[in-house]
């Protein structure tokens, strides 16, 4: 979906709000993190293909996911491949693509609307970093979760390559870009959103993958030594006491105006 291009920029890049001291990383570590990102991007960017599901249900893959703490139910591990593909397509649509669900889109999560500032901001970031969005089976917004995760994966892979090549400048540039992206975008919404999906999902596949997403995000933010407020929060209900209005929201209907009978 999100393809890297060999485009670099000389634009001065402002530092993120909080920059951690350099941490010891290896190319292997970076590639492993990128791999998790790619996996999660594949899960959330569109309905899983039979091939993707087959690969995920391979014994080795299942074992590694279990070791990571994921506990899939029989609806994932024991289902007929065709039925599984179908049921996950329906669950994906219900959760992410139909009216009344939770679009996995940063603009929606942070502003309540599609195609708002985050959409255009990340589009600009991708362009600047030499990435472009290609059409998959369905249209996706640039600030869709799977696309943002793909971008992070691309940056991590770039860091790994730079590190392997001892290209310090390139590594620093990618690393700064990565941190900035977590601070400015993904980190703002993905943790609360993951908790929400974990609660709302009926199928164990999305429940567990949402858990993995949340824990991965927490771990990444910690590894990068960033401090980012979770603006999404994934709240079910906002208490009235937290709603700021310039009048009394408990006012009876029609105001019960003085003099009304």
């Amino acid at each position: 979906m999100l393809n890297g291009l060999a485009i670099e920029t000389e634009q001065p890049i402002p530092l993120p709000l909080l920059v951690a001291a350099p941490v010891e990383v290896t190319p292997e570590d970076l590639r492993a993190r990128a791999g998790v990102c790619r996996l999660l991007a594949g899960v959330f960017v569109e309905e899983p293909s039979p091939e993707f599901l087959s690969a995920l249900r391979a014994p080795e893959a299942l074992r590694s996911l279990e070791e990571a703490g994921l506990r899939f139910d029989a609806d994932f591990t024991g289902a007929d491949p065709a039925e599984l593909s179908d049921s996950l397509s329906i669950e994906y649509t219900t959760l992410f693509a139909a009216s009344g669900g939770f679009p996995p889109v940063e603009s929606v999560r942070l502003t309540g609307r599609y195609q708002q500032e985050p959409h255009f901001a990340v589009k600009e970031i991708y362009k600047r970093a030499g990435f472009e969005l290609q059409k998959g089976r369905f249209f996706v917004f640039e600030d869709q979760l799977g696309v943002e995760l793909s971008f992070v994966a691309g940056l991590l892979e770039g860091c790994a390559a730079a590190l392997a090549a001892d290209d310090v400048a390139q590594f620093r540039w990618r690393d700064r870009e990565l941190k900035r992206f977590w601070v400015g975008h993904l980190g703002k919404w993905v943790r609360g959103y993951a908790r929400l999906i974990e609660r709302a999902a009926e199928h164990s596949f999305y429940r567990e993958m949402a858990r993995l997403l949340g824990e991965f995000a927490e771990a990444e933010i910690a590894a990068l030594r960033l401090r980012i407020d979770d603006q999404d929060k994934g709240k079910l209900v906002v208490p009235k006491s937290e709603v700021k209005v310039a009048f009394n929201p408990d006012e009876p209907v029609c105001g019960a105006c003085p003099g009304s009978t």
Partner: protein
Amino acid sequence: MEMPKITRRTFLKVSAGTTAAVAAAPRLLNAMEQELGGKDFNPDSLAERKAIPITCHVCNIQDGAIAFVENGRVVKLEGNPEHVSTRGRLCAKGNAGMWYSYDPDRILYPLKRVGARGEGKWKRITWDEALAEVAQKLDAALKEDPNTIAVKKGRDRSGGAWGRFMNTLGSATVLNHTSVCESSKKIGMEPTWGPDIETPDFANAKYVLNFGSNILEAAYFHNPLSQRVTEGRVDNHMKIVTFDVRLSNTAGFSDEWIPVFPGTDGAVALAMGHVILRDNLQDTDFIETWTNVTVKELKDNYKPYTPEWASKISGVPAETIERVAREFATTKPATLFTYRGPAKHLYGSYNERSCMMLPIMTGNIETRGGYCLPRGMGWPQPNPQPPGPKHGSYLSTPPDYPLAGHKVSHLVPFWIAEGKQKINVYMTYQDNPVYTNPGARAVWGRLFKDEKLIPYYISMSSHMGEETALADIILPDCPYLERWEPESMPNSLWPWLGVRQPVHASLGESRENRVMLRDIIHKLDPDGKRGMKQFWNFKDGEDYMKQHFDNIPGLKEAGGLKFLKEHGVWPIYGKLDPKSGKVTDKTGREIKAEYGLHKKELSDADMAGAVVGKDGVISKNGKAIGVKRNGKNYVGFPTGNRVINVRVDQWAEYGFNPMPTFKRIPWHETMKEDEMILSTFKLNVHKQSRTAAVKWLAEIAHSNPAWMNPVTAKKLGVKTGDLVRIETRVGHMVTKAYVTEGIHPKVISIPTAFGHWEYGRLATLKLKDKPAFGGTEDADLQNVWWDDRGVHPNDIIPVVADPIGGSQGWYDTVAKVTKAGPNDKYGDIQGDWQKHVEAYKETMRYAYTGDLHRKMHPEMASWGGPESVKHKAGGGGH
């Protein structure tokens, strides 16, 4: 010489006597004015935002608007100052229109139903998959009978694309929403003077009679007309008298609000006509020259309709009727406006005609400040065009309603259930009958859930409305800010053409409707061998618009579509004057409207080959093109005989009274003391169903307590906020009361647009019907401070059909209202299908084929009965 003493009184005299001179005196110092729109700037960067002229389509007024786009998204909408009708103003609904585009509940992909209908389980599919399935279903239906393919359209502004589509398929089963809108107003007017609506010249009127129209807030053309009403009041000291069951803001703005019992406006209008004719206040010359009756015939017809008679029926004092009638007849110019108040009743067509007779008999037709014909402009359709269907459709042109030229679509579920016409594929476009029609989910919901009656249901929609939630497949349509559409509306005295153009690319995989229709046809006829593809030869929406606009004389020279893309509207009559807010010419004077359209004389070229009949009708090539009066050849009115038909002979063929008359609703005459009339109304920030998803509007108005008069409330022991139970013949509901003097004591009235059970999170205040999908997960909903979404009354409103115009009798429902009991809870609502069926059967008895028709028309005793008339396909009164 002694100088006269100057006193304060002298100043006042001088001031009063020199008003005109002061107005003409040069003024060099003016207060600084801001730009009256057309430009917008980012408040931080001060960069000018991109301005794209569009035509608004939140409701159906079609205001000229501008979308300001910044970084690819619409950040603001405002009025287009170049638009002659709306003059830079846009209402609250129009200002909030971008919410449709960015709504998180918008449907962005084709969705295929995977559970039971209405269960809410969907699977996202590709366009290829969706088109293949739709084409396969249509193909199968075509092989059986093209008429088994039906569409029901609501706010269709495609400019002819839907007609092209159904004609391409060869289906005549085209249904609309007009019978729940204003069809009896149209059918009252069309056979009388031609068009289906009037254009009152409020700005120049001295006196206005307003029957049942909330001009300032919700009626047709409320934005342009409310501007003119305000000008008339402020600049012209115009008097307005409003007859309405409710103290709307228009009634409150009026000089007099006269509460009237529902459905009796026509009786009041007839009684006013009686006074005018009795006292010889009519315009005899106009009547004798421009109508098909004499003054004597009119006087004879109006004789029984005395103010005392009308007073007993309507509750309006006879002396008020006398006074207002004389004021109206003796104040010139005067005009009149109606909307749903008179028309949405069992005999709404009669009511409408009775009202429009007042400006006719006083000669206030096509005069400055009077009651004018609508002015609109057309556009050509791309060629080649498909031929029409080979056979008529029962549902589209029901034989029991031959005069209802705008259909009787709200009775369709009963006709389908009775097997009057088979349906294989049913489509909806911009139409949500499960919410907006009488019976709502109890009738339409039941119909759509029945897979035997509706085997395959396609919804073309951008939002998950109550109807779309029951579909088998959803094709994602674009909201108005992403569509190409031609426009023209007669919403002022200056005709115009406009365009709606996308302000950015469609979101997701939504497609504008005309492109979707083209894609379906191309799937059905990929190689053109079926002869369908040839009618759908356009690259995209813009290309289609070029075919509409690029060859219109005048517009072509101005640049055709290019001009419209830059300005949004054509022609541009002048410039918006910042001081007056009016469109003015180069000299600063307001542009003048043209009056007396019927008195335009035919040219010699027009008359070449024409024949003048005995009655003065001028015909050419078998078509009436004008009328000869006083030795001159005029174009006359756009009726079959080019005059105003006070007597509509066609109505008499079906046993209806051809002259202005009134029929009281029989079940209103037998109401019990504790019964009331249940009516509904629209608020100024909502339309029927689609604004519930617009947050700014939902924040302003989101619940809908029932209006009730203090006298009634006292009897019931109810105060504002208390729960009341409302029972009708088809069901019951429980809602909150709002006690106010602003409602007739015998009426309980509930605003619509609330109480949605679908239409997204904002309308329903929930996400999915499962615990985890609780309520306010998305960030913006954190600001939703209200938790009352209202209660929708349509489930308990039975169908009523005007046997002439086909309109739903929205305001004919008798209801029993009581204080809610211990088992009643807020939001309870239940409608019963069987009881709705009984109501349907009852209303069919008033059709010209029904057993009550003759009883209701004793004055038509000589009529030969239904067997004496030949059924005419298509109905229509014109």
